[in-house]
């Protein structure tokens, strides 16, 4: 956990006061909406269908229990008692009043939470692996670098008015849980032959109207050069990114239009011209940031404690454990995923009561720390294995122990037309119906790991392009229709899904998914062959046939 010091807190408070003044000037008419819109977006405030939406930053997805309690307080006091965790490790509140926002922000600032740059044409939350710092085999904790990047990009005077939004993600494990290949800048932390820490830098990933998988611009940038190299990329983008068409304004378009070699050359030229940069990180600075990350003092615990052995006889506990509990790098501990995907529920939401309960459980069982994943679940990253049975009971009581993590009903969905003014169609009811169709846990287990991603419009906030099954809402003659893709992946083998056929109406989506699953079960070589691998092996055709045979 990173400890904010007086300087960090002062900056957040100064930002709150600035926004308070901006809201005052808006409500008095001194600022027009046209002038204010950009300012409110820079503080994560959207105007949606029914109300303002307020997006709060959770830097690299790490929260303390105190912070989570404060989010619960904001949900209760300023909103309708719940929040939504997003595909960028942030949290959103859907019913906030503009006039009350400065107070909500002040309440959050007291615990080191802010909403700077969670929207707008600037550099957004630097996301990372939700298991950072605890995953076995991780090279080093990527959050140190995420924090360095967070500070570097916060209120950057040169890059606060980019052509379009700009998203970073960092991974430090062989298996990429941060989806770096669909980010504007993706960073893969690794060590060179001399054992020095550095990054493979990828650019130009992104979904939306023109999805692209990011390309490697430089295979190794030394850690000390990370910020100066990023500055070179941002400067090239700020100057040459398209500003004539918002659908062509992301860096991915610039990379595509120039070609990666030419783009890399432009960045290299700019970087060389920067010379000896004040941004070069020396060991002292890196150590300074590292020293403010605190880690638990782990106990020496047995690999298989008695409590766990006993509880393993309970099939309900076992099923939950099988899907929710993951190996920790320290013996005797585990990473526990809390599913926010209850059967019939909207994916990724948590009530204020649930948030308080999770905060208490974090204090009791996880050294006061919680993680937010981009797949819209939470995690307790340091649970002693002997505590798992008690934790399960407590989670089950508050509806956070659905044993469906990574299974078909663990759906990622954007808010869709129920909330969002950009949407063409609803996504949450589709997700809800799918969880009902696949509510039987035996069936879900039989199907195995399968990621469904749903987006209510082409902006792809649900990451449908990289879903094993991707569902995209479109509008046809005033009706909601959905395009289905299969075979997408967001990890180190990132790939875009392929369309299986014409869009289907709202009422048929769940049937189509059932047909796809049936086809998979019939076609897989063996039970361990994942859906996404069967698609890779056989292509889209057999699935297309099955789905459209009777449509």
């Amino acid at each position, binding site marked *: 956990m990173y400890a904010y010091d007086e300087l960090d807190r002062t900056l957040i408070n100064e930002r709150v006061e600035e926004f308070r003044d901006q809201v005052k000037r808006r409500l008095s008419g001194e600022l027009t909406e046209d002038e204010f819109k950009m300012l409110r977006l820079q503080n994560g405030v959207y105007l949606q269908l*029914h109300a303002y939406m307020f997006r709060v930053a959770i830097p690299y997805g790490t929260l303390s229990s105190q912070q989570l309690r404060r989010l619960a307080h904001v949900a209760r006091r300023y909103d309708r*008692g719940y929040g939504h965790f997003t595909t960028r490790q942030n949290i959103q509140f859907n019913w906030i009043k503009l006039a009350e926002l400065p107070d909500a922000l002040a309440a959050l600032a007291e615990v080191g939470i802010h909403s700077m740059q969670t929207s707008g044409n600037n550099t957004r939350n630097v996301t990372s692996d939700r298991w950072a710092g605890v995953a076995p085999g991780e090279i080093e904790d990527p959050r140190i670098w995420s924090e360095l990047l967070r500070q570097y990009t916060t209120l950057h005077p040169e890059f606060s008015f980019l052509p379009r939004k700009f998203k970073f993600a960092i991974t430090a494990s062989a298996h990429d849980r941060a989806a770096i290949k669909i980010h504007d800048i993706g960073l893969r932390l690794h060590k060179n032959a001399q054992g020095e820490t550095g990054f493979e830098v990828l650019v130009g990933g992104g979904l939306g109207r023109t999805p692209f998988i990011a390309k490697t611009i430089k295979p190794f940038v030394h850690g000390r050069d990370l910020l100066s190299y990023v500055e070179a990329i941002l400067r090239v983008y700020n100057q040459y990114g398209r500003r004539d068409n918002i659908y062509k304004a992301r860096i991915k378009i610039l990379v595509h239009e120039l070609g990666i070699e030419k783009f890399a050359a432009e960045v290299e030229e700019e970087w060389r011209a920067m010379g000896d940069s004040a941004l070069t990180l020396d060991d002292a600075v890196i150590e300074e940031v590292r020293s403010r990350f605190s880690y638990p003092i782990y106990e020496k615990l047995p690999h298989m404690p008695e409590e766990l052995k006993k509880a393993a006889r309970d099939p309900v506990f076992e099923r939950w454990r099988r899907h929710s509990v993951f190996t920790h790098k320290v013996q005797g501990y585990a990473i526990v995923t809390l599913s926010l995907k209850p059967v019939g529920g909207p994916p990724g939401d948590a009530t204020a009561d649930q948030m308080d309960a999770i905060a208490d459980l974090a204090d009791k069982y996880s050294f006061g720390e919680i993680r937010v994943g981009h797949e819209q679940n939470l995690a307790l990253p340091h649970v002693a294995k002997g505590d798992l049975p008690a934790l399960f009971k407590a989670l089950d009581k508050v509806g956070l122990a659905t044993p469906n993590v990574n299974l078909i009903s663990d759906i990622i969905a954007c808010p869709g037309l129920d*909330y969002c003014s950009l949407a063409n169609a609803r996504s*949450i009811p589709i997700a809800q119906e799918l969880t009902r169709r696949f509510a039987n846990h035996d069936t879900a287990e039989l199907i195995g790991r399968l990621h469904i991603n749903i987006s209510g419009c082409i902006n792809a906030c649900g990451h449908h392009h990289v879903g094993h099954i991707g569902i995209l809402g479109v509008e046809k003659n005033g009706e909601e229709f959905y395009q289905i893709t299969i075979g997408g992946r967001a990890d180190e083998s990132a790939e875009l899904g392929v369309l299986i056929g014409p869009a289907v109406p709202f009422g048929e989506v769940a049937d189509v998914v059932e047909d796809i699953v049936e086809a998979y079960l019939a076609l897989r070589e063996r039970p361990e062959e994942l859906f996404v691998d069967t698609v890779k092996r056989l292509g889209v055709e057999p699935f297309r046939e099955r789905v459209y045979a009777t449509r």
Partner: protein
Amino acid sequence: MTSPLEQKIRIAGPSIITANRTFDGAVIYRNASQGWSTDLSEAAIVRTVAEARALLAESVADDIGAVGAYIAPVEINDGGNIKPGNLREQIRQRGVTIELPVLA
């Protein structure tokens, strides 16, 4: 960014002007007395491009009170009641189509 007034206006049937209230984001409808109402039944109906343009101009001019005014279709049922003219306006009027996680 083109203002709504500069964009081409098309009317396909009875329409209203709707926006969100600035201070709290609530859904509002332009009424016939130079004001706003949260009740769709009080919305002023426009039926021609000229009427729509005039009502929109008046709405957009209220920059302090309202944000993002635009023209939305409605249906008038047999009883003479105004109903939302598409799914999006239905959702804006009635709220989300799903159960909220917490009962208000």
